[in-house]
């Protein structure tokens, strides 16, 4: 059996009367790019801190890079904590080389490496600046560099996109993708579902300390296939006629029409062949657009997380202007 980069078995973590993580099993395959999702207070940061051996679990085992504790392989792990900062009075270059030295990296090549990386994250002149002179977004990028400057095999990023503007969020995504292509194992937690959907090969979702979703992106999509075809007729078509035509297509179970919108949703039978149904629709209704709706992580999230559990999370993820601006950046 191939050993995962991170293997969590039956891990429980309690903070006195509150169970933060409850009997969690998780395997992060080597070389995968995993999204770690869940509402606020679900136990994401606690789980990550246990992976990093900053906390030790009350029950269960955590193995990281084949060793029983991350404490033994900290130099091979890059970790961007959620609570992150910089030494305000330290210069950016000094800060990065200090962290690199702590992780066992040194010598002449380090200096060149720091310059290269600063160049890549569009901070070419930052090296001599004090950290406090940087904006929050710039500091975020410096913190990210601090976590990956030593070329780790395993990269753990807790909320890497928080506080980044759309341009920098895109830069962060491209860096994550690049490191994934280089064969590194990456796990990141996020609230930006759209980013996770675009990037990840694998998704974990936890709620109230329990795992509620674990699988590859394709598996999750087929598991949560909404079996719905979205139809936008050409303008001028009478809505009632379109509805009737759609309802007559074999395999269509029901048709929904949102009053002001121009689109119709045709729900399919459990056994219907989506391709055949789409062809039939095109034959019968003059359409501008026919589309098989895919399961978005948002759908999955809403499906799995009881809104009562985390109303604030839903608000944050679905309606929050700041969150949606990050989503729009993907378009």
């Amino acid at each position: 059996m191939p050993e995962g980069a991170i293997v969590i078995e039956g891990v429980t973590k309690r903070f006195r009367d509150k169970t933060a993580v409850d009997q969690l099993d998780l395997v992060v395959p080597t070389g995968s790019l995993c999204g770690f999702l869940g509402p606020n207070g679900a136990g994401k940061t606690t789980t990550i801190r246990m992976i990093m051996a900053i906390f030790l679990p009350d029950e269960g085992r955590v193995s990281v890079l084949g060793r029983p504790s991350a404490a033994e392989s900290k130099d091979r792990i890059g970790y961007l904590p959620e609570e992150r900062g910089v030494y305000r009075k330290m210069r950016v270059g000094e800060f990065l080389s200090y962290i690199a030295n702590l992780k066992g990296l040194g010598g002449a090549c380090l200096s060149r490496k720091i310059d290269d990386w600063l160049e890549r994250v569009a901070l070419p002149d930052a090296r001599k600046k004090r950290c406090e002179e940087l904006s929050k977004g710039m500091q975020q990028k410096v913190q990210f560099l601090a976590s990956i400057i030593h070329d780790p095999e395993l990269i753990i990023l807790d909320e890497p996109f928080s506080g980044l503007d759309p341009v920098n969020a895109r830069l962060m995504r491209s860096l994550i993708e690049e490191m994934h292509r280089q064969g590194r194992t990456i796990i990141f937690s996020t609230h930006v579902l759209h980013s996770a959907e675009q990037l990840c090969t694998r998704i974990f979702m936890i709620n109230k300390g329990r795992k509620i979703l674990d699988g590859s992106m394709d598996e999750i999509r087929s598991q949560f296939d909404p079996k719905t075809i979205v139809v936008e007729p050409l303008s001028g078509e009478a809505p009632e006629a379109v509805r009737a035509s759609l309802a007559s297509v074999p395999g269509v179970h029901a048709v929904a029409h949102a009053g002001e919108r121009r689109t119709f949703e045709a729900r399919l039978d459990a056994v219907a062949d989506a391709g055949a149904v789409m062809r039939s629709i095109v034959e019968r209704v003059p359409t501008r657009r026919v589309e098989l709706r895919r399961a978005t992580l948002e759908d999955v999230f809403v499906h799995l997380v009881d809104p009562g559990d985390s109303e604030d999370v839903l608000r944050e993820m679905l309606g929050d202007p700041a969150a949606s601006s990050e989503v729009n950046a993907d378009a």
Partner: protein
Amino acid sequence: MPKSSSQSDPAPLVGEASRLSRRPSPSHSGSASKKIAVIAWREFRATALTRAFFVGAVVLPALIWGAMFGVGAMNFRRPPMEGTLAVLDATRDSVVASGLEAHFSPEAAAERSRREREALERIAKEQALQFGVPEDEVEQRLAMASLAEPAPRVTLERLPADADMQAQRGRARAGEVLAVVSVTEDTLTLVPQGAPPPGEGAAPDPRGSYQFIQGETLRPEHARTLRRSVERVIEDERFRRAGMDPVAVRAVSNARTEADAVLVTREGEKKSNDALVRILPFIFLMLIFMGSMTGGQYLMMGTLEEKGSRVMEVILSACSVRELLLGKLIGQGLVGLALMAVYAGVGLAAARNFNVLSQIPAGVLPWTVVYYLMAYAFLGAMMLAVGSAVTEIREAQALYAPIMLLTFMPFLLMFPLLENPGSWIATAASFFPPTTPFAMVMRLSQPSYQVPLWELVGSTIAGFLGVVAMIWIAAKVFRVGVLMYGKPPTLLGLLKWIRYA
């Protein structure tokens, strides 16, 4: 969306410490010590190799010394006293007024200043012989001294017995006269030994007192000189009435009596009667106190900063809690040591310059380093714990109280320990780990006293056991505290952390 995971209640994290990462496996001990060294070096560099530290440690003390010498020099420039002293003398034969007249006569004044100068020269020459003060410096000091006390030019005005004292007060107030003095026969009367003090509200006993009326314009040092002169004349008259020769009496009572003290020990004989030697314990106490407090303060502030700026977890992703704690302790320990080295170096250079280097017991110096390390590690560990337990400096105040108490103790102990370095208090303080280094350094630096060997060894062991215990406790608090934000714990809460950890 920055999400705050602030912990509003410290309780949930209790129990954390035991679960935090422990020491790395033995195969990693090499990299652990390297990490500790990297952390220590950063701490040292970020603290000691800064302009702020240079200003605080070197420039500021220099300025303070400069200011003190400046004020001293200014004091020397006193204007000479010139004016009239009005005397209402109701004694038999007006002896006081006559005595004052003689006292302030130009001949007497010249004779006095000649004698004073002779005395100063004698002292200066003695010092030159004893401490090797250079010749030109002796001249300088003498010049300063003669500036210090220019001969006063005072004329005496005898007031008639029926003088209007109210008018005389007005003259004193207006500064027309230096002062108005009124003496009576009662002034010369001796108050019998054991006479009860006048009761509350009763009129003051007229015996033995005289009136001295001055305005605001009279300089305090001139008032002192005048009063000293009046009192001297009164005393002389009392001696005469008692059938004694005032000149002879003064000659006898001013004669020098001084012990030539020698301490006989197993190592041989030591001189032990110099002023420098008497303040040595205080100097050594201040040296280790300053070093350990400086290092400790930086530890607390540094830890607070790392928590406040949220850089703590970034650092902990690269090293363990234990490595961070030890690295910080060592780094700031070096800062304190560097500060001590600067001051001790300046002190030794000064001692060499004044030829008193031999008076400093050389054996105390290595012990000073040992006791500094002990004092620093104890205080520093406490400060580290406080710094890690709170989020803001304001919150640290409450937890700082026990540290304050601890830092007062050496000064409370100073007088009993200087009085008798062999007392049971001294022994107890030496074996009480928080005060061990301070007490021992004060006892060791007294050349007239030899600390028993068993006490030296025993208290040093006790002190270091205390340090180990304190670091152990601090590590527990540190482990729980470093990643905890929100409501600061109380002192009781901290004790709970230790118990749970």
